[in-house]
């Protein structure tokens, strides 16, 4: 894409990745993504963040539409992950910047990624300021949001926060601003991004939001490294980050399962019926059709997580292991849950799932429920009652 002037003399100069679907190997990006870089033209010309190595030509084309890249004085690396720094070796060769600003941990990370100790690193820490001429850049280290090296850059004269991976969304679009696209799509994508990337660091998000309040930054634009730039719905996205990071559950339950001969699936549906009958909203996922990253946003908001698998080779089916492992790594807090599954003879899966849920700090509210081979009407009634019990536990924990 061509550059877009987002504020006077400040340009979006990134790349839209229309074809991306596999985001970093662990999450789906069903609507593609963008890699946002920002160019500030002042007495010193500064480029904030980059694009992956395979998008460097697009970045250069975009830069050349507004400037000769060799005129750039400063590179600011807010985050070393290769989708934001991968273009660095080529850009360094072309731009030959005077300085590369980064956090202390980012310097080590850049060296271990690109093996170039000779680049003109300039380490900055929280509270450090640099001058670009008319403008100042203030840095705030945001360790573990979501890598140890992560950092925000704030331009007070422009009220612009360049927020690295925080507040991002995976969306390829020709628009650049939050108010130019469908709002429910935008916030769904922001929620999915949070659930799949930021969730384990929720306690740090809470601290960060408090810190941003403390330093009293007057922000009228938040420019993340993925997706659209927030210029209109800033209070809403900050409120959402407050809500998501608090991890206050809603009156919702997620039931996910895999199945061999549809017995566990029939159990899942009867369990969902029981939960729904108590007045709790349910999302039901067969892991054969739902990717773990599509389930995660629903887990983030739900009070209950109910997981099922038939027993296969004395254990759970592989897709359950995938989902549970992924979920555990994202550290959702304050959940209740239970496990279920059909079996032929030994029947270990439901108990195994229950133990795994416990290891993920899910409070187990019902003994693992098992059905031998094919459920009878009586078995399905027991499944429904199992669901009702879970539903009542949700209601008890989530007041109206």
């Amino acid at each position, binding site marked *: 894409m061509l550059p877009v002037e987002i504020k006077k003399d400040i340009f979006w100069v990134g790349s839209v990745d229309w074809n991306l679907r596999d985001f970093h190997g662990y999450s789906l990006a069903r609507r593609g993504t963008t890699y946002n870089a920002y160019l500030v033209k002042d007495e010193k010309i500064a480029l904030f963040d980059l694009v992956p190595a395979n998008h460097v030509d697009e970045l250069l084309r975009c830069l050349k539409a507004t400037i000769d890249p060799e005129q750039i004085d400063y590179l600011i690396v807010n985050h070393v992950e290769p989708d934001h720094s991968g273009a660095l070796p080529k850009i360094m060769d072309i731009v030959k910047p005077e300085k590369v600003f980064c956090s202390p941990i980012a310097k080590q990370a850049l060296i271990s990624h690109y093996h170039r100790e000779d680049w003109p690193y300039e380490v900055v820490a929280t509270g450090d300021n640099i001058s670009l001429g008319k403008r100042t850049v203030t840095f705030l280290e945001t360790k*573990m949001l979501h890598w140890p090296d992560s950092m925000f850059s704030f331009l007070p004269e422009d009220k612009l926060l360049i927020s690295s991976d925080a507040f991002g969304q995976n969306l390829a679009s020709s628009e650049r601003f939050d108010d130019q696209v469908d709002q429910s799509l935008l916030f769904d994508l922001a929620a999915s991004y949070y659930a799949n990337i930021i969730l384990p660091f929720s*306690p740090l998000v809470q601290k960060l939001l408090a810190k941003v309040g403390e330093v009293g930054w007057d922000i009228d634009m938040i420019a993340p490294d993925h997706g659209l730039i927030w210029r209109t719905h800033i209070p809403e996205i900050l409120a959402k980050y407050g809500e998501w990071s608090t991890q206050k559950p809603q009156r919702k339950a997620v039931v996910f399962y895999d199945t061999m001969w549809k017995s566990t699936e029939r159990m899942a549906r009867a369990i969902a019926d029981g939960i729904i009958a108590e007045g709790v909203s349910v999302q039901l996922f067969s892991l054969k059709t739902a990717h773990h990253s599509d389930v995660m946003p629903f887990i983030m908001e739900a009070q209950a997580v109910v997981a099922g698998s038939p027993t296969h080779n004395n254990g759970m089916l592989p897709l359950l292991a995938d989902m549970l492992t992924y979920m555990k790594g994202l550290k959702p807090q304050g959940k209740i849950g239970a496990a279920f599954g059909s079996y032929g003879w030994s029947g270990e899966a439901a108990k195994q799932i229950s133990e795994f849920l416990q290891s993920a700090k899910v409070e187990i509210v019902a003994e693992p429920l098992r059905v031998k081979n094919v459920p009878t009407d009586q078995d399905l009634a027991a499944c429904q009652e199992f669901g009702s019990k879970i539903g009542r536990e949700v209601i008890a924990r989530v007041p109206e």
Partner: protein
Amino acid sequence: MRYVCSICGYVYDPADGDPDSGVAAGTSFDDIPADWACPVCGASKDNFEPEG
């Protein structure tokens, strides 16, 4: 003595311990089992430095 995780900045305070990981309040940093990991970023014990 409090210890700080050099990766993420988490502070281990012996007064609080880390009960979620089975480290009781009152446990000095030295007495934490060697396989304990930072509750925020998962870094190992040798990534911690005394505060100050």
